[in-house]
């Protein structure tokens, strides 16, 4: 495999075969027409030719399908957009040293699961000493002061605490995504901070959770988004980078 490919296709068992697997349910009873409908959808998704390999009626009005086939789409690697880490990954010592030297006070982080979300394991993985994936959490960093508000924190309460604690950064976790709960809650949160703080004083807003699109900062009004498998060191390094190194005034 050479690394300077710029266009690739999905790979089943031969380079360029474009093969993918798809499954879905249509809300129609199983018959030939339903199978045709499934193939129509596969065609619209770009599978050509598509093989309908499984169709299972479910409870009367629904049918589940499995389709295999070759997608005609090309993946253009040069056009791929990702949030690459644009800051150096630091160890705890380095983070502490930078904060101590440049801020001359503790960097204050306030964390919470907002809305009705009670999944604290993710934010705890980042904040608690215990940490994640073998790395200690931010509480372990001597020069950070961490206030973890836990689960189901209402947005006004979060804003108040952030103000009271003089938070440099607010870290929010959202795990439940049904009906886009995570997006609604995050937007509500960032709007509240924008309303409550003048642009220059607003704490850095960081949101995380397994189902975010890391590119969506603009849309959600936050400074950074962290996804699946984030480690504490990444977060700490980012905070130092954004708050100390860049001394960046977060975009309003």
């Amino acid at each position: 495999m050479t690394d300077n490919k710029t266009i690739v296709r999905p790979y089943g068992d031969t380079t360029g075969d474009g093969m993918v697997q798809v499954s879905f349910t249509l809300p129609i009873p199983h018959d030939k027409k339903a199978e045709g409908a499934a193939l129509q959808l596969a065609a619209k998704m770009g599978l050509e030719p598509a093989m309908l390999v499984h169709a299972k009626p479910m409870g009367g009005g629904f049918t589940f399908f499995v389709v295999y086939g070759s997608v005609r789409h090309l993946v253009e690697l040069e056009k791929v957009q990702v949030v690459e880490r644009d800051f150096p990954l630091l160890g705890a010592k380095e983070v502490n040293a930078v904060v101590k030297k440049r801020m001359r006070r503790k960097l204050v982080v306030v964390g919470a699961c907002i809305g009705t979300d009670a999944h604290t394991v993710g934010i705890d993985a980042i904040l608690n000493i215990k940490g994640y994936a073998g790395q200690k959490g931010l509480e372990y960093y001597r020069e950070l002061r961490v206030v973890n508000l836990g689960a189901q924190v209402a947005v006004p309460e979060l804003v108040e605490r952030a103000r009271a604690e003089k938070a440099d950064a607010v870290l929010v976790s959202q795990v439940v995504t049904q009906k886009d709960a995570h997006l609604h809650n995050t937007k509500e949160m960032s709007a509240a901070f924008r309303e409550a703080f003048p642009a220059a004083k607003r704490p850095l807003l960081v949101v995380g959770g397994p189902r975010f699109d890391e590119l969506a900062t603009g849309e959600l009004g936050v400074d950074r988004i962290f996804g699946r498998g984030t480690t504490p060191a990444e977060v700490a390094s980012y905070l130092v980078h954004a708050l100390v190194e860049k001394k960046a005034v977060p975009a309003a």
Partner: protein
Amino acid sequence: MKLDLDPALVRRARQLAREAGAPVVDMARTHTTVSVERAVLRLAGITGADPDGIPWVNRLVDAVRNDAGLEHGVSLPVFHALAETGETDLTLLAQKAAAGSVRFTVPVKKDATAAKRLARRFAGAGIKQIDKRRAERDKLIKRHGDPKQRPWIYLIVATGDIYEDIPQAQAAAREGADIIAVIRSTGQSLLDYVPEGATREGFAGTYATQENFRLMRAALDESSKELGRYVRLTNYASGLCMPEIAALAGLQRLDMMLNDSMYGILFRDINPIRTFVDQRFSRQVHARAGIIINTGEDNYLTTADAVEAAHTVTVSQLLNEYFAKEAGLADWQLGLGHAFEINPDIPDSFRLELAHALLARELFPEAPLKWMPPTKHMTGDVFRGNLLDGFFNLAGTLTGQGILLVGMMTEAVVTPWLSDRDIALQNVRYVLGAAGNLHEDFVPAPGGFIQNRANQVLNEAITLLEDIKADTLLNAIADGTFGIMKRPADRGKGLDGVAKQAEGYYNPATEILESAPAATTDVSER
């Protein structure tokens, strides 16, 4: 008995649980909560909500509390006022109270006696209604029959919209589910009221309301008829409104309820005292309604490690058993929870699961144990997920679990899709059909890995129970013993809804529930 447990050790474990739990029961007997009081009034017939959606029962209890405090219970003031105003309907009384045209006082002497009598009549009517529902259930089970196999197959619906939930539940029943659980919307458990009416707007679950209960139970009655098998319905009592939801469940003939003595404390940060008080009353209602409770030990293993913390599950099961029996529940009503949550990458993980599952089975031989699927170590790799679920199902049948909560391959992705449920049920059908009798050939080697592990967990549980007894359960909870969650007794939500009972506290429902024995359901039929 495949584990060769020492009966003396088992007895000792149970004795310790009793001793560790007793002070908490004393506390529960001597306190009341806004939700307990609201539950009484719901049994007494109050319904409906104000134009803002706040139930009249909340408005009424708040008004009473304002005028007369909570410590005597609301029954005396409310039924005294009812008699005084000449009303016959609690809902109308609540409306009047909301309009400020009624004031509440704690009656004394003759007035008190009259109010008690009235309260007992009203609450008694509600409890009679629950008895009727229970008899109805017995009749329907007789007519349609119980599931043919053990474990019973338990399936979740969670669209957030009761009208999407219904067809999905019916489809699931058709595909083989014996029990349908409607998951609640996130956040409901922290609401200090029970929403009203049919709802379509939940997040990752559907609100638990009396009307939703009714709609779903009616739909499953249809399914039971269609399928010739009584399809059970489950919902959640846990949360700030545990007693009220228990009452509504009894009134709408739900068949099982999630009801754990500590879940609310640990996972919803509800005040420990509030929870223990609410829990006891709600279990008394469940006992009367012939409802099977489901406890929540599985949750501990999502925050703590399933191997390291295995004994905390055992301890919690023993405590849940003690609290449940004290509240009047029978063995057949104890759906004690445990889960298949060991990291699948560790060596012998499946045999460890078998050891833990068999330990629970042999400690609680008469209880319909609820076996929960892998969640923590499920990933977006849905192919692997379906495989893990298959081994979970196998462990369930090999160790004789009573209730199998069906795992979904999309556990780490979405609340279950219609097709996930279908695939999951197909998985269960395969495993039970192909290997449902394999327990006959499953004989843990004497002194071998499985027996040793089970005995180790039992011993660790006993040591922990000794510590808890010495230190008190409330302190143990404060220290993060369960699920690594630290919950001090003076913190957490809902504490302001708790009151120590005053002299003369009166609760007609408790009186009835503690005096008359629950209607007998033939246990052998379960």
